């Protein structure tokens, strides 16, 4: 079968959209109030070593996905246990992202449409994209990102008259602890979530590509997320944590010359594209994991069934939007910590040992 390949540019675009997916609309942190932008910066710096670790694991085994690496490093039995763990994580993450989308549309745009229908529509598009392969998702990302950049920049420029910069004061008014907690929250959602992409970046071109993709993608997306958070703070003040979708509310306040109004729709456009790419990647990774687990020839034959199961799971996972927001900011960082830090650390150490032993073995045989 032909090997799928995406260019570094496409992968960078993909990772940027993956990051801004749901954090763009939910915000990065619910604890540090008007210091959330500092939490964003802190989260980005906290994530940097982890991202280097993910990139290192990928570059040790070029052209291999996360699931191939598990089997190569740990052997069949333990490798399969790791595969199972990451199938669950990507499946769960995909379901949570679809649910975020469903709640958003249900709250701000179509309150009378059943949430199941809005989520079904997104899932069908995701299933089609994943069946087409990672190359298509990469090309969509590369062609959509400039439009998203244009929208974000224009909206930020339009919101300048509504900004009150004294809202960011007092800086560190509640002390450093809430900011550190917020930084941890921003670390796990969205930066370290890119562990899922290790299952999709089997298709990068060179050995150095993972470093480039993770570094440039994270810096651009991080700056974007921090600017957006800062924009929401200077428009809404301390109350911005009280909204379910602060970005949407902040943009809805823009009114220029009485005729440029109600431009919050643009936020929805960015969010919908972000969620589409993020849930597609989660679906792709969990399908690839299941295909690897059962030694299937191709993951495409199970994409529809996995997508449908993901949809049902996202439908049943929360009872209300309050539960969703609470879970995302209070429980999720702790729940995701093993998947984002502990297991990758174990894999990283085992992979390094394995590669060095192999090298030594080769040298001795010469």
């Amino acid at each position, binding site marked *: 079968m032909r090997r799928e390949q995406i260019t570094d540019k496409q992968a960078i675009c993909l990772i940027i959209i993956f990051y801004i997916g749901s954090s763009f609309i939910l915000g990065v942190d619910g604890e540090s109030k008007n210091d959330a932008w500092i939490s964003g910066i802190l989260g980005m710096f906290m994530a940097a070593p982890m991202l280097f670790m993910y990139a290192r694991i990928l570059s040790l085994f070029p052209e291999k996905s996360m699931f191939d690496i598990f089997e190569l490093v740990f052997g069949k039995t333990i490798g399969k246990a790791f595969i199972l763990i990451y199938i669950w994580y990507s499946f769960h993450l995909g379901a949570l992202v679809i649910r975020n989308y469903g709640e958003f549309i249900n709250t701000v745009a179509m309150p009378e449409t059943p949430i199941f229908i809005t989520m079904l529509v997104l899932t069908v598009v995701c299933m089609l994209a994943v069946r087409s392969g990672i190359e298509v998702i990469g090309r969509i990302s590369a062609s959509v990102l400039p439009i998203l950049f244009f929208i974000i920049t224009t909206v930020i420029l339009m919101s300048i008259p509504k900004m009150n910069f004294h809202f960011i004061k007092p800086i560190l008014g509640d002390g450093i602890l809430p900011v550190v907690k917020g930084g941890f929250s921003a670390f796990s959602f969205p930066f370290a979530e890119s562990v899922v992409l290790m299952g999709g970046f089997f298709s990068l071109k060179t050995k150095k590509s993972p470093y480039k993709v993770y570094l440039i993608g994270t810096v651009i997306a991080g700056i974007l997320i921090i600017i957006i958070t800062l924009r929401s703070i200077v428009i809404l003040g301390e109350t911005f944590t009280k909204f379910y979708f602060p970005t949407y509310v902040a943009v809805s306040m823009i009114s220029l010359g009485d005729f440029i109004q109600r431009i919050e729709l643009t936020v929805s456009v960015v969010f919908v594209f972000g969620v589409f790419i993020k849930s597609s990647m989660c679906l792709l990774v969990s399908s690839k994991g*299941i295909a690897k687990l059962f030694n299937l020839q*191709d993951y495409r034959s199970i994409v529809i069934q996995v997508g449908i199961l993901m949809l*049902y799971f996202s439908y049943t996972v929360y*009872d209300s939007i309050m539960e969703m927001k609470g879970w995302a900011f209070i*429980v999720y960082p702790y729940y995701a910590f093993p998947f984002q830090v502990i297991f990758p650390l174990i894999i990283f150490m085992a992979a390094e040992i394995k590669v060095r032993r192999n090298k030594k073995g080769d040298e001795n045989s010469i």
Partner: protein
Amino acid sequence: MIILVVIAYSLLFIFEFFPLYNQKQWRDLWLTMILGLCSFTLIALLSFGVKIPSPAMPIKNVILSIFGK
């Protein structure tokens, strides 16, 4: 509701399972059928108004019992 579900799954059966059968990909076919059976059971339960338990609350309870709040 259940009629809609049955129609949707019949269509899925035709467009998803038959191509795999024709290509003689037995492993893929079996897995797809098992996953399809799971999803059909879930949606049938949902359409009869049965509440499917979510793992969100148990995970939350475990995390809060470890880290507190």
